């Protein structure tokens, strides 16, 4: 231990995972003067390419404020399509729920961005921010958080000593496993088919969440006459749809879209993601904090998992930077506990809500249909409740980290 300490690269925070959460956290911490090492098993060139991740994400208003306040939005703004309205509807029901950004002020409800553009902007930020050292193509093999500093061994043989290790290494987080943090996980037996769709008519900034008996069918506006499609089907059906040749796939699409956008057709490849929900039992272990997918995986129904990840980032950055500015050990137990108690309640609440919504809508039983139809209509007519739902969609509720309110740390 003494030997490896002597040759170790010392830093304040070791961020493991350079995805959309880890590579946002690293430059935010470094901008506050912390010495950060960011490790990823992939090459950034691969991470930021379209074939690696063809999905798009909704960046909620609060997440955008975090990005704007920390200078990360600059690299994304040019690629962002504002969401001006959200229309939630169901099968053949005449009832639908309508969220208009004008009800809350002038700012959009959120923005749609292709993941590769988010990744590119964040990667550029990690490169230009002094104080972030990027180590690509390496994995973390061992982490020992038992001492006054955490010691991490990398696959290239290097040892890194850090006051705190952040696990941003995704749903199947190896760091979480090795820390012995258990997760509760369940599958929906549903698979989301993701594709980019071209359409004849403009989307006018409207996002559609259409609840079909098989699962939600979401159309989210991208730049130009394009949308990001999240089409949920039972896993067996999804496999069949994934195998369809282009013409047949487009016909299936057209059938579900109807004709309100004119002719529609998929561009580029399709992606299939089995839907599951997971929740880590703890968010922290000695000198370790979980952020993003390593801590929680939500049903993608509300498109909120990445935004929850950014709320993790905002809370953890605030807790760490406040502690560092008092000269405290940023990896000590009471600092980490503050982060955990701040985030867990919020994440569990949203998990329960979106899981409940999906269960409510993914079946065809008539009384349930009636209730949810009336429910949607009722929500639409009660401005208070609607504002509450919209505030949730925008991520502006809950005990707020300063960055989510647009205040600098």
């Amino acid at each position, binding site marked *: 231990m003494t030997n490896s*300490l002597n040759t170790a690269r*010392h830093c304040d925070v070791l961020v493991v995972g350079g995805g959309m959460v880890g590579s946002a956290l690293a430059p935010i911490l470094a901008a506050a*003067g912390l010495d950060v090492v960011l490790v990823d098993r992939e090459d950034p060139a691969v991470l930021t390419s379209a074939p690696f991740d063809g999905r798009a994400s909704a960046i909620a208003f609060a997440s955008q404020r975090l990005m704007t306040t920390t200078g990360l939005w600059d690299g994304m703004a040019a690629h962002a399509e504002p969401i001006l309205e959200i229309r939630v509807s169901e099968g053949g029901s005449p009832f639908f729920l309508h969220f208009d950004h004008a009800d809350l002020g002038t700012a959009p409800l959120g923005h749609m961005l292709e993941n590769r553009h988010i990744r590119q902007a964040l990667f550029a930020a990690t490169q230009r921010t002094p104080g972030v050292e990027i180590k690509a193509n390496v994995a973390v093999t061992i982490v020992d958080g038992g*001492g*006054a*500093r955490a010691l991490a061994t990398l696959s290239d043989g290097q040892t890194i*000593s850090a006051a705190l290790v952040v696990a941003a290494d995704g749903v199947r987080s190896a760091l979480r496993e090795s820390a012995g943090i258990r997760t509760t996980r369940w599958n929906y037996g549903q698979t989301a088919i993701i594709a980019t769709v071209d359409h004849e008519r403009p989307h006018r900034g409207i996002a559609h969440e259409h609840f079909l008996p098989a699962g939600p069918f979401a159309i989210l506006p991208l730049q130009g006459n394009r949308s990001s499609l999240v089409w949920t089907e039972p896993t067996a059906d999804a496999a069949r749809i994934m195998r369809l040749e282009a013409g047949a796939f487009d016909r299936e699409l057209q059938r579900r879209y109807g004709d309100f956008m004119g002719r529609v057709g998929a561009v580029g490849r399709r992606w299939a993601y089995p839907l599951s929900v997971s929740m880590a039992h703890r968010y922290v272990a000695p000198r370790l904090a979980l952020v993003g997918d390593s801590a929680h995986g939500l049903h993608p129904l509300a498109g909120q998992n990445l935004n929850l990840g950014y709320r993790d980032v905002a809370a953890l950055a605030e807790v760490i930077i406040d*502690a*560092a*500015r*008092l*000269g*405290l*050990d940023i990896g*000590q*137990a*009471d600092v980490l506990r503050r982060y955990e108690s701040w985030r867990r309640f919020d994440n569990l609440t949203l998990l329960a809500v979106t899981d409940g919504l999906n269960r409510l809508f993914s079946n065809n039983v008539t009384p349930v249909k009636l209730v949810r139809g009336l429910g949607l209509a009722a929500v639409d007519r009660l401005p208070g409740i609607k504002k509450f739902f919209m505030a949730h969609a925008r991520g502006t509720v809950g005990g707020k980290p300063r960055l989510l309110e647009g205040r600098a740390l």
Partner: protein
Amino acid sequence: MWWDTQGPFRPLHQINPVRLRYIRDRLCAQFARDPNSTAPLRGLRIADIGCGGGLLCEPMRRLGAEVVGVDPSEENVEIARQHATEAALEIDYVQATAEDLAAWGEKFDAVLNMEVIEHVSDVQSFVAACAALLRADDSAMLLATLNRTLKAYFLAIVGAEYVLGWLPKGTHDWNRFVRPSELRATLAKAGLKITDLKGITYMPLPREWQLSANLDVNYLAFATRT
């Protein structure tokens, strides 16, 4: 034990952030530093009197100061040294008293007397020794202690030691608690003037200690030469 945030020194860990914020902000104001910058106390030499396991020394060092921690207990000094080594922090820990430092002619930009004077038998001579450690007219002494009020008796002794068990029984002797007026007079005799006094109050809802105007129980003082 000193460094277990849930162990017997948990109350000190809980009160540490508010003490540190006070020390940092006062010193930054005194020496024209930006408290949000990296290592704002760089270039300042600070003595921590009665440093214990180093709960104040390590943060001061991380904030950039050159730190000397003294404690009469050999055991404390050893624990502090070992912990600093593990944390890769360079801190000079010495088994000594403030009087020793003064006799050796050591000088500092700031002297920290946190939760010390209520344990000292001759407060006046102790304060005089600490005052002799100040390097220049703008050097500062920071103190934290307990007020000799009925409320402090019930909260700090009956409450913290006997009811809540936050502190070991016998930690504090109420008769040695110091009223702000007495502290002011004692410091004045040593040529120091208190320019700021703040209370520390426990806020049950966020479950943390905060600065307040209420000096009834725990309070902090900032003093420089008159």
